[in-house]
């Protein structure tokens, strides 16, 4: 069965489903930030920015696969 993607329409303009997933992943990542600080996420990696970027990509991929 084909996986259908949600489409957003603003004033007749179709917004690509990827934009919605990317936005939702940003919102989830922003919500996770206090928790990441609590568990000292940035001290567990030698390059925290890349680790955070990877986490963001992981969330984005999960959203695309699950929804």
């Amino acid at each position, binding site marked *: 069965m084909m996986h259908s993607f949600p489409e957003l329409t603003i004033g007749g303009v179709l917004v690509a489903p990827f934009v919605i997933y990317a936005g939702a992943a940003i919102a989830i990542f922003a919500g996770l930030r206090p928790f990441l600080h609590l568990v000292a996420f940035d001290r567990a990696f030698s390059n925290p*920015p890349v680790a955070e970027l990877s986490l963001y990509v992981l969330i984005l991929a999960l959203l695309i696969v699950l929804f």
Partner: protein
Amino acid sequence: MALVQSVRRPVTIAGFPLSAWAFALRMWAAMMVALYAAFWLQLESASSAAVTVGVLALQTRGQVYQKAVYRVLATVVGVVASFVIAGLFPQSPGLFLFGFAGWLGLCVYVGGLLDGNRAYSAVLSGYTVALVAVTQIDSPQNIFSAGINRGAAILVGIAAVTLISELFAAPNVHTGLSGKLMAVHRRVRVFALAILRGESADPVQSANLLREITALHPNITALVAESSGGWARCAAARSAAVALVAEVSAASALASLPANTLPSLRRALGEALADTLGEESRALQLRLQQLADVGYAESRDALFTRHALDLLIENRRAQDAIEDLQAGRRPPRRIQAPIYRSRRAAARNGLRAFLAVLISAILFSLGGWPFASLGLSLVGVTIALSANNPNPRAFAGNAVIAMAIAALLAGVTEFLILDGVDQFPLLAIGLAPSVIAAAVLSTVPNPRLASIAFLAPPFFLVILSPANPQGYNPETYLFYSFMAITSAILLYVLLWTVLPTSDALRRRWYLTSARAEMGGLLAGGRSRRLNDEALFRDADRIGQLAALQPAAADERRDDLREALEIFGRAAAARRVRTTLAELSARAGGRLVANAYSALADCDPVGLRRAAADLASTAPQLDHDGQAAARAASLDLIWAAFTTDASPLGLDQHRWTTS
């Protein structure tokens, strides 16, 4: 003892450090990724994605991310404003331009009340209307798609610059910021040590220290966006900056006391400040606390002890907060660092932007040139950006030079280097020399050259307008370049002629506002801010005053001396009010009524009498009440002392009538 230190010379290429080249290559790579993605997505304004990278070409990750977030928010606001303004005046270009000028003026006014990237986002909300709606003034039905295209291109540019900054390890704000805070802390300690040796406090030196501290505010706010520990680091950096301002204030208070007060304590305090490990400092702090609890027969000794204790406490707070910043810990103290912005200056800037847009609209429409709407929108963009600059005239001068260089580079790139090619790799190679050279030059310490180099890439990309396929139309290039340079020259002329704001005028506004706020404070006006927060805001005003360049050095010194006197007196008045409020809560308002009225009258005799009354009634109170009465009595004597010491002190009308 000879101190041997090995100094490692940084590796340079063509006179620029490797970090500058790495920054330039990151920017070029981000720009090409953005352009490629925008072409691939077939966005109409693909060049906006590359311009976004040029605008976000800042050296640290935190600054880039903060500016990116504000750029998205401001673009959304600006695009909505474009729809509203275009919808309100659909058949009337004159009224539409009037509405745009009003919106831009309002945004410039709001931007004038903010700092750093927040101020940028306010003016961007204004000039987005210029880029989205004014350029489509003859075809308003296209405004919606122009807005959507611009928003999409900006998002692509932001995604590209974020990806490249993350993957190629752009430097963090917090490492540079903690280095700067440590350097300022060292200078504040040197300043305090000189005062303890009996030297007087130079107003220019004090003001420059305050300026250095408060100038870090935009970097402090950028910490939030940088990492998951950004909030904690931001709170720590704020706490450090506020403590450093309070340390300068305490050192200045010590400077106003006679140089022969408690010589042995002066020596001990000097040794404690020089002790970086803090053991001596903690021991002395404990001793001073005990001395303050017992009290002194001589009021000057008591005042010296109190300010010495403040100095030590703030020195320790600053040190701890800097360590918290480095470790990414949340500091124990939660404090804000409010900034001062002159409402008059902001209103004048807003009015100037409004008038400048109207005047240029009239001139461009009289000219009857093609691409006039582009020229007008560029005037709107540059006047809005100039308003955010501490020196708008210098910005306008730099914009003229940057625009001319950008036009030349765009012509050379389009017609000599690329000359009709349509492959993306060749476009990327063709753009490399201009983009990399400008990014490298933007890192030099010379502010004029750095500003021109920062402005040139966005202007270059606007004139070149990379598109898929590229037009290679010499006529379009000539008109674009002509309009761009004309708009920069027009901005320069307008800034010199329409409501010019001289440094002398700004100086007068800053001093007037300081006097007026002092008057309000003496009259009993309560602020919701903590004392140290209000002190930071006052320090920000002095920092801005110190940044102005008046004609004569003596005049500058006198202005700074007056501003610092008000700074010290306001700190004393706020402290008296706090301790009186504490005493009133413990022992009732009857005890402190005389003190409040003496404070409102600026009456040093009355203040001393109220202090003596409090000291005599203290033994009747409980233990905590006695401590509160002793603290209030000492603060009243200090307020009387600062009023006596100030040549402006006995004239209370000065605070309210000027």
